[in-house]
């Protein structure tokens, strides 16, 4: 029973770490330091609706 619990805890931890990693990756995409999408060419001018 103890071994089962250890395995389950390990699986849950692994899933949590992976989810945090995915979230961190998304956060980088959300980050203001990141430019617009690759090659979108807007050069960070997204906030200014000039046209």
């Amino acid at each position, binding site marked *: 029973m103890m071994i089962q619990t250890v395995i389950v805890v390990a699986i849950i931890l692994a899933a949590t770490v992976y989810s945090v990693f995915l979230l961190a990756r998304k956060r980088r995409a959300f980050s203001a330091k990141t430019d617009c*999408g690759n090659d979108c060419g807007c050069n960070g001018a997204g906030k200014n609706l000039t046209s």
Partner: protein
Amino acid sequence: MNDTGFERHFTIALAGNPNAGKTTLFNSLTGLKQKTANYPGVTVERKTGAWTLNGNLAKLIDLPGLYSLDATSLDEQIARDVITGDRSDVEKPDAIIAVVDATNLERNLYLVTQLFEFGIPVVVALTMIDVFEKQKHEIDIEMLAALLKTPVVAVNSKTNRGIDELAEKVNEVIGTTPVVPYTLEETSENGAHGKIFARYKYISHVVQESVWHSDHEKHRLSEKIDRVLTHRFFGLVILVAILLVVFQTIFSWASLPMDLLEKGFGALGDLVRTSLPPGILADLLADGIIAGVGGVVVFLPQILLLFLFISLLEDSGYMARAAFLLDKLMSRVGLHGKAFLPLISSFACAIPGIMATRTIESRRDRFATILIAPFMSCSARLPVYTLMIATFFAGQTVLGFISLGALLMLAMYALGIAVAVIVAFILKRTVLKAPPPPFLMELPPYRLPSLRTVLLNMMTRAWLFLKRAGTVILAISIILWALMYFPRQEVSSSEFRVSSSDQLETTNKKLEPLPEAEQLKHSFAGRLGHAIEPVIEPLGFDWKIGVALIASFAAREVLVSTLSIIYNVGKDETEESETLIAAVRDAKTDDGRPVWTPLTALTLMVFFALAMQCMSTLAVVRRETNSWGWPLFMLAYMTGLAYIAALLTYQGGKAIGFQ
């Protein structure tokens, strides 16, 4: 020869009009599998691949499709920057392959004339030559090459015609200086337009000398078909009929493989239960992982069929006609004509759709399109719609022959489009006010769908779906299972008896676990579900649906896996193993009423049709708008709208007598 085994390294750019066949040629030359479709603008970002040509290695760049190098839109700017060597991340090309659609020679040659002016050698790859010849037209390739003063090769990526010759010609021209085969007349009289006139005058001469058009058929079959398919009334009737047939077919064809998959995952869960000793590990594997991931994977046949039909419609050229019909509607609400492609792409997934808005020059039009793209029913909504339809509306027909399920599915797609149009109308008259620029839409020729393209699209989508199930959905399923499983509660048997039978028995104080349904209620997820219950109760949802709703904000299809886990975790050992559909149908509230009714199912579908439940989409909107404000605005207004629409559906349905 250097250490890579190749004599020389080159950079070659593929440039051409949208829908000229660049990506198909790129895939053929590099062996890569970039997405292709029979409508303009599929390639928005540039893609690179390796191409070996006669002992040399070339880095092949697939540029976005463009009509000119005037750099009025983002994609034209990217292409121009690559060609002029103004981008720091890519070398200036040593040669350009100008992909020219033989069926639209005049329009395609305009870009070629501009390419000549950059001083980079150009080889013309003539595509769609088979279609051109079938239309009983003739083209003198040698004459065309002589007039253009550059090599011209007829290519066919499906049959590999001309591929070797193209490599030879590219090798030959590298290092040479191209000749601009006409005189640029920019005088004070005609100003900058003089260049444009000079190019068109020259193109007209080239086409006149090298092409013979057949005039035997006054009205080509394609034009006749177009008259019907783009008719403002019959066109819409045909569009609705096609979509109904598609959805009806998806339901009927997918039912058998879905049943098999469902039984397979059920058997796998049983196998785990019988192979492992009862306990927490067996619970995690059977109720968490197999139920969670399996609950989503069973929808694979439907996803495959959906993309089979989307690919067939795209590749045959029909999708562009459908877009033409919708474009009339879009232009009336003030949306840019170029918005049609991003919106159509969003039916598969909003992310490529939002990225495809880069073809729209005006930032206001672009943002308006981004803000409505997630209303298009993406494939992640399909498992949710299907579960609800299969549970409550399966086998029912309207007028005796139209499947109610297919009709409801169509209604969800139509709801998304209708709300998108209304929102665009409001946005374009308020925060994103601007007149829509004129737009000329090109209708591609009809053609027999390529089996390779169709299979490739289906396989790509299937792989993405399974990858998501095996990574994101798996991780979320495990975490959700843990949230539904813990904390484990034990009570004295006397306490339990008080709560279950209302009789006081205080003699036996032995500790024993709560029944599974009670455990779930007291779990972390159960408490969260109960906390939000007052908010979702007016929509007819109980706390279990609330838990699934919260989880689905990570990704829409997580709703299905969450319900699958909830009904497995909350199932007592005495209950028989059942499918998710049966579990949803049989679910009861604490006072014994059914949790789900057809009206609840419809309400949930309406909520899902309109709510913003995709973190990846929000991330892309953040990136594309370079602002936090727009994704937050999108999340707030879409979810608010979804709540109101669901509330109206449920309360309105109840008011007129539905359960």
